[in-house]
């Protein structure tokens, strides 16, 4: 393996061609073992959705409403600068009711009714935990395996390890949708989809709503396809002549890149063109599915991308940081994402794609049981909570209709089957047939991995 990787590093590394990453050539000889998923769609809910109001029911908390969080539960753990100054940490039970769903009897909140329909498809992990308590380090951690900037993102690791199966589309695509909540959303950073120390050809390519879905894709006004082709032909012929003189294979690569750019000018618009999707599909993804840039439309596009062999699709939905007015804002966020998230799973299944596609849903941390700000009968806020939160996975070798992990009565500490962020990452790679301890890249003398020196595959989540 080591030599194989070294070879791959040479092939794609500094100064050499990095055609592989985007052109879909697979620089690795093979995955480490038989994969159960070919592609990943990762729905990141930026800001930290409240597990207490979505996936982790604690009906008994009503009894403790307004009481200070017992010291025996908090155990002196650090809390953010936003609530560390509060004189009390009053328990806020969820305003929403939970009920068992599907044959699996998975309990979910009333505000995500569409999720109820996929209870038997997903594996819900109620016991994910992280190490960071603020957005920047936490989102960097869950997306790159390390809290500080500088490491490659999950998608970059995957493209580096496995390449793409479509030669006309990038292997790692990123889409961002904006908040529906009313309060401010948290920022994102290009480091979340950056290649870190891997060659930058492995970074995520953003697909955006509007006329230029990929940066600089469109020819300018007044340049039709014939002119573009004419320019490219001239360019190619001149490049070939130069290659004949200087003999640099890099020129051949550049010629190929221009051809691929030209193909992308067709393949990307074809991908973004939803006119051939039928009304039933739009209806399934919900009322916003026809709105460019909406989370719903991006879910639909994600399906189209994996259909075409794109390896890793990363969606970010902003607006889950509900420090105050949580009941109002979480419902707005849920309304904008619930149906499309569920529809994606259902749609993939209907098309026979779910078995090869791993769908991951979750934020960078959870939220506290105690209220931030004023607690009233109808309103509360919740601060960041790293010690437990809920994520779900579906398809691609994941065991459907399963619940993993349990939290204590306050959804504060994990009492059973803790799953660390690195474990989620290890599991994701595992489904792709990649051993997370073996996918390494030598940088600054160290063989770096996505999971640093940690992580183990969550076996219970596997089918």
């Amino acid at each position, binding site marked *: 393996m080591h030599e194989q990787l070294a070879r791959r590093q040479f092939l794609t590394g500094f100064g050499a061609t990095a055609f592989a990453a985007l052109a879909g050539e697979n620089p690795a000889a093979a995955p480490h073992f038989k994969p159960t998923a070919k592609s990943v769609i990762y729905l990141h809910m930026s800001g930290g959705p409240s597990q207490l109001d979505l996936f982790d029911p604690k009906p008994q908390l009503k009894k403790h409403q307004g009481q200070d969080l017992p010291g025996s539960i908090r155990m002196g753990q650090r809390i*953010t600068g936003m609530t560390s100054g509060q004189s009390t940490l009053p328990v806020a039970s969820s305003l929403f009711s939970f009920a068992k769903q599907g044959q699996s009897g998975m309990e979910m909140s009333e505000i995500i009714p569409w999720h109820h329909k996929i209870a038997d498809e997903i594996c819900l992990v109620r016991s994910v935990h992280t190490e960071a308590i603020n957005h920047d380090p936490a989102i960097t951690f869950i997306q790159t395996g390390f809290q500080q900037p500088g490491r490659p993102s999950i998608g970059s690791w995957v493209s580096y390890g496995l390449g793409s199966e479509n030669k006309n589309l990038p292997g790692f695509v990123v889409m961002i949708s904006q908040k529906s909540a009313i309060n*401010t959303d948290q920022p994102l950073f290009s*480091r979340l989809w950056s290649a870190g120390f891997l060659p930058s050809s492995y970074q995520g390519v953003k697909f955006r709503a509007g006329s230029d879905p990929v940066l600089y894709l*469109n020819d300018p006004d007044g340049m039709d396809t014939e002119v573009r082709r004419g320019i490219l032909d001239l360019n190619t012929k001149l490049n070939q002549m130069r290659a004949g003189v200087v003999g640099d294979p890099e020129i051949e690569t550049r010629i190929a890149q221009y051809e691929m750019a030209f193909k992308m000018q067709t393949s990307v618009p074809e991908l973004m063109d939803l006119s051939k999707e039928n009304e039933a599909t739009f209806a399934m993804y919900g009322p916003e599915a026809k709105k460019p840039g909406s989370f719903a439309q991006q879910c639909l596009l994600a399906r189209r991308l994996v259909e075409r062999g794109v390896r890793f699709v990363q969606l970010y939905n902003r607006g889950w940081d509900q420090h105050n007015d949580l009941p109002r804002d979480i419902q707005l966020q849920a309304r904008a994402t619930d149906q499309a998230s569920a529809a994606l799973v259902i749609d993939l299944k209907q098309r026979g794609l779910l078995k090869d596609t791993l769908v991951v849903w979750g934020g960078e941390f959870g939220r506290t049981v105690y209220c931030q700000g004023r607690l009233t009968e109808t309103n509360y806020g919740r601060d960041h909570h790293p010690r437990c939160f809920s994520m779900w996975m579906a398809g691609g070798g994941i065991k459907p209709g399963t619940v993993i992990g349990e939290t204590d009565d306050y959804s504060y500490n994990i009492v059973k089957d803790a799953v660390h962020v690195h474990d989620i990452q290890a599991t994701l790679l595992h489904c792709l047939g990649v051993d997370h301890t073996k996918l390494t890249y030598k940088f600054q003398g160290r063989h770096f991995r996505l999971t640093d020196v940690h992580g183990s595959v969550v076996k219970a989540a596997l089918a």
Partner: protein
Amino acid sequence: MPVLLLLTFVTGMLAAPKPVDFLREVRPILSDACFQCHGPDETTRMAKLRLDQKESAVPKASMILERVTETRGPRKMPPRHAKVQLSESQVATLKRWVQEGAPWQEHWSYVAPKKLAPPSSAAKKWAKGAIDQFVLARLEQDKLAPSAEADRTTLLRRLSLDLTGLPPTPAELDAFLTDRSPQAYEKQVDRLLASPRYGEKMALHWLDLARYADTHGYHIDSHRDMWPWRDWVIGAFNRNMRYDQFTVWQLAGDLLPNATREQKLASGFNRNHVINYEGGAIPEEYQTEYVIDRVETTGTAWLGLTVGCARCHDHKYDPIQQKDFYRMFAFFNNIAEKGLDGQKGNAAPVLKLPNELQATLEREMEEAIAGREKQMKEADVPGKMLEWEKGRLEQLAAPARAELLAHYEMEGNFNEATGTYRHGRYLGQPPAGNGGAVGQSAVLDAPARIEVPMPEALDGNKPFSVAFWFRGGNKLEPMTIWSQKTNGAGIEVGNDEVFSIGDLRRGAHLLVTLTDARGARRVYESLEAFPYNEFTHFVLNHEGEGRFALLLNGKPAAMRESGSQERIAFANRGPMVFQQMIGSLDELRIYGRVLSESEAHQLAVVEPVRYLLFHSGINRDKAQMDLLREYYLTYDAPEELKALHKRLKQLKAERKQLEEQVPSAMVMSELDRPRESYLLRRGQYDQKGEKVEAGTPGFLPPMPAELPRNRLGLAQWLTAKDHPLTARVAVNRAWAMFFGTGLVKTVEDFGSQGELPSHPELLDWMAVDFVESGWDLKRLNKEIVMSATYRQSSAMRPELKEKDPENRLLARMSRFRLQAELVRDNALAVSGLLHPEIGGKSVSPYQPPGLWEEVAYGAQFSAQRYVQSTGKDLYRRGMYSFWKRTLPPAGLAIFDAPDREKCVARRAVTNTPLQALALMNDVTYLEAARKLAERTLKEGGAEEQKRLRYLFRLATSRYPDANELKLLTASVKEMKARYGANPLAAAKLIQVGESKVEHRNAVELAAWMSVASAVLNLDEVVTKE
């Protein structure tokens, strides 16, 4: 063509197998596969076996061999689960090593370099100096011949790009091509080394190491000003500052005795790291990260060591103990900095950099202000105000009630206060009440719907007036504050796009839009902007027949009209609606007549005071007390005091204005009492271990006792003559800049896991020579570019493709793509668009819209919204592009520019379709193609062939050959035909970019622009050959 070298001199006899080279062959295997568990890190060392030291490793050599030849079972090494496994050839190497008696050498880079005499060789004639002698000797080992010198055109292009980052002009080329003197090349070298562009080019590489950027990074990523430091770096290279001095100033300029402003500014190097201001983050955690970043950056930039690995535990491969790391940490831990900072631009400590005039003005102003403040204090304003407040309320006029149709006070509701009209309605939860201009205000933080019924139609034929307070919220887009319409016809009041004034203040213009039933519109826009994040009072007087007059805070403010020239008829009784507004609203009054200036003044200035005096029972907060004091001193105080107040206010405003003009930079500055430093277990800020004192790593030469134990001492230790790393690392980096790859490929890692030098003796020779020369960088660079090695052709020879595909042996010059900034600079230069200004604030060139906004935080902070520059600032060199760390300049990032969140010692060079798209369609390159076409048509003569030769030479420095010319000619013909058939398309195409179109014939220009674009996209154009 390769030189036919004198390989016959190389003995052809079959040599006995070469003895194993421990450093090159064996140590890397041990390091990579064994040190993890049997290396310097004591805590994870297995079986008490240490293989990085001679005493413990050599005696165990046979045992090592035995274990690595096991194929299974617990005795197999490395164990099955280890991520690094040995190949058969590696095992064979170990076997040879053991058979030869396990010879041992210390790791090369920990011992001081020696200057060995350059090897003499039979091919001496080729060699121009020591560099070539070393290179040649190595080539001869592999029986390779160097390549012939590149032709002069290629040479000058290479040299110009390497030393200045810009291509040669045709005139410069001609001068060189016709210069027959033996010093012709050297003259060019000297000319380019003396160019002010040289400093820019050298700085470009240094900025990556220094992680220079224009924003703070991390979460909020608002703007900072470190460009004065960047400009200092450019200047330092241009003045050819000695590298040891360059080092000392940047690491410890502030600690030099009687440090000058320049020395302090240089210390900004270690403030270029990212700084966090995420709400709720723990300051200590981030202050620790800043210090760690400084240690790591210093490690990479000067030591070429990955010291960061010792943050959490002893280094696995190099003998850097965790304690060493925290001893280094202690050097950088004493800065008067805050863990969370940067919300208002630069984070403390900051150095102000006024010019002489500004400094004088500042001093004078301070004195003037201090004097008047003293007088003010002596005047006992609080005492006077106590007297004043008695009975003042009764004298203050109440707001006019004549023809007041409705008044909504916004005290937590929308109730109508005159009692003569209907209350307003809020559909949904009532908005939060909050401190307003007068009492409470209504705060809307989301689209909502408030309806205020109209007592009478707002009628285009009748006078009326609407008065209200407004303060904008967290929204930057143009917005409607209120509208009063029926079926789309009526009046709408809002603001245009919000802009920043300095770091925290914002402004916008008021827009009044009238629309009639046919959809005709007229817009009235205030010429003056109003402060967006403070309460502003508006009186909108309608004098009749569509004539509006605006009063801002009680004072008349001019409006500009645009849109339909016809009269817009409007009149309806629909409710006034607040729907899309985000912000705060207070005291809405509707009058059936216009208000006079004094009435507006009463509402805007007097009423808030009257309210406070009326509610004298409430505890006044500071803002309220200030409001009263301001009113008293402006209107009611004795004349002298009023005058004093007026002058003081004016002075303070001037000082503020001056402050905003004075640039500043973040610098290092020591705390009076150093912070205590501890070993941090697992590298965690809150896991303090033993206390440590500042010091250097134990395995490197000790720090002389006479050096101070601070950053200055550290810098002096680093620049000591016999330091094993500093000069080697610097020389290697210079080499990499020219050849694409360093003599040590891993320019950032000279440690155990780094690659060994391809030419160790050459590296050492150059390092010692560099120090002996007085750390003279220009001399070093000159030595490299004067060498025959550098001057070789870069053409690939078939035998080299096989034997040395990475060109580590240098039998030819390396050929590689320009770095991101130079791809841009080159296109701008050849098209004539490049603006030559050096330094200054960073600029915002073309960038596809929305890239910042879709990830940014919001309106409270700076650098969240991309405001494109105009005019010359669109055409500055790439290195001046505003570098936002969470979204670096898109056009540069595509070409492997780093995000600058961390120190980067070498960039990747990739070749991707996204780069092709950028060169094809980024406005930058399309506009450059147009200008190149225009330039060609203007300057390139009248004949087509001549023109094509001119164009091609501008872009590539050389003339096209006959075949190339044939293709180009055919292409011009084709494009002319295409655009001739579609002149409309031609007219559209040439509109790209903001520069003026200077060629009259659109079809001709479009055709030539297409060809120019094809040429600018050539591999050769973006490559240094």
